């Protein structure tokens, strides 16, 4: 089935009233409390104005009033879908300021946890994307698998969603004895379900027609808007911080960077962004398998935790590859117990700003799909 991009039609000659539609803050598919002011010409979107801030929880102000250890629970609550990945850059920024070298085992556990959480995050992203396109069943299959990952998290850390597990210099506690087997089982399960999802949803012709050639984001626009993560890679730019500037121990693993190739449509359309997430799950599985094989059995995960977290005067910007993109923490220390300033560079915040650019000229139904393909979390957009 062909899809016409409605931009090609000259609307200036057709005089019609524009309709202003408020989507959100309560709307089933705004992924939280985003409000979009949409200007419609019939069903064609002529302009979108995102209004954010409905979940502004004052993270940066609170961080100035907490000591370094106490900030971690709040960092969890920024991007609540991938908390492990949030803690990592913050903890590593403080470690860089203090010059702490964490033990080998800690690094491995951190990587495994972060990658597991990346899988969980992408599962939600693909699931809600399918939901936006109207497919309800894949949503539940993915959530079923995510539940198994959460059970591992709960067994290892005590929390299902918000962990407070990575501490400055180590971990809150060691993993449980059968951790390795459980993780390997999960990897197997994830692969099995992903194959099913590909048949049921990704390569379904209706789904392809809905998402291919929709919301095309060219590479140069994506870079200029500062997009990162699957949004940038979907446009064909092979940029991944785990490869570009390997932090932690990511240089020890063999994995690929999946990019959008325009298999069913144009490079950088919604389908490409989605397939990048699907393939990243597979790459995460590979990383986890390698990390499990290399992980040392013995070792104290708390040996490097400082008695008092009090970094010297200085400032550091540390960034990691969050599932959503580049998550950076800009930490300024004035030598006291509490950080002078913590700024979170949230990937969703930056990725969302490209929405008006790529949704102009498509149908209203496409706007929902485009928004779903960007995969935002409002907790991170508003902080």
């Amino acid at each position, binding site marked *: 089935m062909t899809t016409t991009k409605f931009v090609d039609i000259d609307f200036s000659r057709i005089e019609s009233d524009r309709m202003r539609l408020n989507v959100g*803050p*309560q*709307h*089933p598919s705004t992924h*939280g*409390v985003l409000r979009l002011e949409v200007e419609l010409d019939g069903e064609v979107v002529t302009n979108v104005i995102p209004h954010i*801030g*409905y*979940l*502004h*929880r*004052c993270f940066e*102000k*609170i961080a100035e*009033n907490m000591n370094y250890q106490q900030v971690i*629970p*709040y960092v969890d*609550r920024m991007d*609540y*879908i991938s908390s492990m990945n949030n803690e990592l850059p913050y903890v590593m920024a403080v470690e860089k300021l203090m010059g702490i070298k964490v033990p080998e085992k800690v690094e491995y556990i951190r990587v495994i946890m972060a990658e597991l959480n990346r899988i969980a995050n992408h599962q*939600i992203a693909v699931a809600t994307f399918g939901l936006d396109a109207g497919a309800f069943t894949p*949503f*539940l*299959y993915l*959530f*079923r698998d*995510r*539940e198994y990952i*959460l059970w591992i998290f709960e067994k290892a850390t005590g929390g*299902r*969603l*918000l962990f407070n597990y990575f501490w400055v210099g180590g971990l809150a506690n060691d993993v449980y004895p059968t951790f390795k087997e459980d993780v390997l089982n999960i990897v197997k399960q994830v692969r099995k379900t992903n194959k099913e999802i590909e048949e049921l949803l990704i390569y379904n012709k209706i789904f392809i027609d809905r998402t291919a050639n929709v919301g095309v984001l060219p590479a140069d626009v994506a870079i200029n808007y500062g997009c990162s993560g699957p949004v940038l890679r979907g446009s064909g730019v092979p940029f991944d911080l785990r490869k570009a500037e390997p932090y932690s121990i990511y240089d020890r693993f063999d994995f690929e960077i999946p990019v959008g190739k325009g298999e069913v449509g144009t490079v950088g359309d919604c389908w490409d962004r989605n397939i990048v997430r699907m393939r990243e799950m597979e790459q995460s599985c590979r990383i986890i398998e390698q990390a499990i094989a290399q992980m040392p059995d013995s070792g104290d995960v708390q040996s490097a935790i400082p008695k008092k977290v009090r970094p010297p005067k200085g400032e550091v910007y540390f960034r990691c590859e969050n599932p959503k993109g580049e998550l950076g923490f800009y930490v300024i220390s004035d030598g006291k117990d509490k950080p002078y300033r913590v700024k979170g560079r949230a990937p969703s915040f930056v990725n969302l700003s490209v929405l008006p650019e790529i949704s102009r000229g498509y149908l209203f139904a496409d706007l929902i799909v485009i928004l779903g393909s960007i995969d935002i979390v*409002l*907790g991170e957009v508003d902080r």
Partner: protein
Amino acid sequence: MGLLDRLDNPFETGGIILGTLEDVLNWGRSKSDWYLHFGLACCAIEFMSMNASHFDFMRFGIIPRATPRQADFIMITGTVTLKMAERIKVLWEQMAEPKYCISVGSCANSGGPYWQYGYHVLKGVDRIIPVHVYVPGCPPRPEAMEEGMMKLQSLIDQQAIFRKRQRIAEEEALLKNKI
């Protein structure tokens, strides 16, 4: 309302009829609650988990509705900010009676982790709308939300429908005496 009063009198055997009718009506309302498809923050993710296969919220007869007009109860799942507060109030007013509210998680209960320095956070959703059940947790486990739901169902089961004012007054008087 002479007839209703007579029916409600246990000595004229009407109490049984009305009581049974009341039970049936309450049963209908408590077993078929439709919630407003609405999530705010972290708790909404656990809320989604609860709808998923492992916990299956639909076992309680609960179906998501996207529009407040058709919803019976709202779950405030997450932090309510001041910008959002007025919207929630509007949503609540749009819902059709009888309606209920469950406040899920620390943020909705009292501002949670943000109660001290959160200049833009509403410290408890009960400042703007009435709350029937408070579910603690940050975020609560899906089972905890289900437990809160069961609490709400037992609340609905005991609600008075006939001679409402009189009975509410009696209950209040009883409560006062106790205190």
